[in-house]
């Protein structure tokens, strides 16, 4: 296993896992572009995948450790009492943990039952590039739709952001999307995590299972689902990362047996990769939580569309024999 490839893959995993740009898609596309297919098919790749997942999960647990402590404490209290009432769960942490569990179940079940088949069917780089384009389109559409809903809401309660809204709606030309988002936020549009129902959490979980298609971003699709039920960008991102933690952690822990039997050199490289992925993931989640306080999914949407189209063109040219 080439150390340079390990470092690059670790960085790719750590960043792309949390950014709404599909880590699985990039893991398929970039090795395809660079001719690293032999690495992905080798047995030595499996220990690396395990440590990359564990590194990313540990980064998420570290960043959100306070949240997880509150959630687990609240969860124990409501589990013992058997209800979510304010006397038992005054801050709603137990209910939030239940929402995370309900949101995790669909993706966990679908992943275990269908992941291998889906990766075999759709793991070709050209398909991953197509799904990456779709990912970009979904992010863009979700942003436009959410923005429009916020503007309509702001108009309906006659706040100062109505002026922005009227201009944007009539002219079809938006002012800075971040300005509109911030203005509409004042209209108290956003639903909080406390108000989310279990059905909504399950629907977000079902959306998360779409990330089994290489090219569809797990964090992107769960954020889109969260925003569609009225969560703000920040709340949707937070819920998305909380949902991701048990899934990624389970994916790493359940694959630990694959580490046994790997040579010492491979294990050392895999561990280094895990650490790099973890650091990259921690910095990514820190950046994204601040980013989504005020900004939108648009840049990621444009990136996915552009990168997906370029990659699709490249692989199509290869398929047609125009490129080696």
């Amino acid at each position: 296993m080439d150390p340079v490839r390990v470092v690059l893959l670790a960085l790719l995993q750590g960043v792309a896992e949390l950014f709404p740009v599909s880590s699985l898609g990039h893991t398929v596309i970039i090795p395809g572009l660079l001719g690293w297919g032999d690495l992905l098919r080798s047995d030595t790749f499996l220990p690396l995948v395990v440590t990359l997942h564990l590194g990313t999960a540990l980064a998420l647990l570290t960043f959100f450790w306070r949240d997880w402590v509150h959630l687990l404490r609240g969860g124990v209290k409501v589990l013992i009492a058997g209800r979510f009432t304010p006397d038992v769960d005054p801050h709603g942490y137990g209910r939030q943990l239940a929402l995370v569990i309900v949101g995790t179940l669909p993706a966990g079940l679908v992943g275990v039952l269908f992941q291998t088949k889906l990766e075999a069917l759709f793991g070709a780089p050209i398909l991953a590039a197509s799904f990456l384009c779709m990912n970009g389109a979904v992010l863009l559409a979700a942003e436009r739709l959410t923005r429009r809903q916020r503007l309509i809401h702001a108009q309906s309660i006659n706040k100062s952001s109505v002026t922005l809204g009227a201009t944007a709606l009539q002219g079809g030309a938006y002012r800075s999307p971040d300005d509109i988002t911030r203005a509409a936020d004042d209209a108290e549009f956003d639903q909080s995590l406390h108000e989310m129902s279990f059905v909504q959490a399950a629907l977000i979980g079902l959306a998360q299972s779409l990330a089994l298609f290489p090219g569809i971003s797990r964090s992107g699709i769960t954020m889109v689902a969260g925003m569609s039920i009225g969560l703000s960008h920040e709340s949707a991102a937070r819920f998305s990362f909380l949902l991701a933690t048990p899934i990624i952690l389970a994916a790493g822990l359940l694959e630990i047996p694959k580490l046994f039997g790997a040579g010492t050199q491979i294990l050392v490289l895999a561990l280094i990769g895990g650490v790099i992925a973890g650091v990259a993931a921690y910095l990514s989640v820190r950046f994204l939580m601040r980013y989504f306080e005020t900004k939108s999914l648009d840049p990621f949407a444009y990136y996915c569309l552009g990168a997906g189209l370029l990659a699709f063109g490249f692989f199509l040219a290869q398929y047609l024999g125009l490129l080696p």
Partner: protein
Amino acid sequence: MLLISIGGGRGALCIMSHARDVKKGRSPVKPSTAYLIGGIIALVCVALGIYYLIPGINHVLADPPQAQHIKHSIVFFALAIVALVGARFAANAKASS
């Protein structure tokens, strides 16, 4: 005819009460029904968990089909636990409403 009309009337009242409960955000499920549904789901999940643990039989949605699939079993056992816990919460929500 009288019995049918009384039964029909009681049935209509049950449906109206259910609709009222749903509208007011109360769980419409009786505690015993919640435990029954949760118990059935849990039993099915436990059975599926055991099914995926038995080697030598053709397992659906698993590759290779005849091997033991511990991941599948873990997921179904976890679902069984969630079903039972969910039933308890649903029953308590109805009891306290």
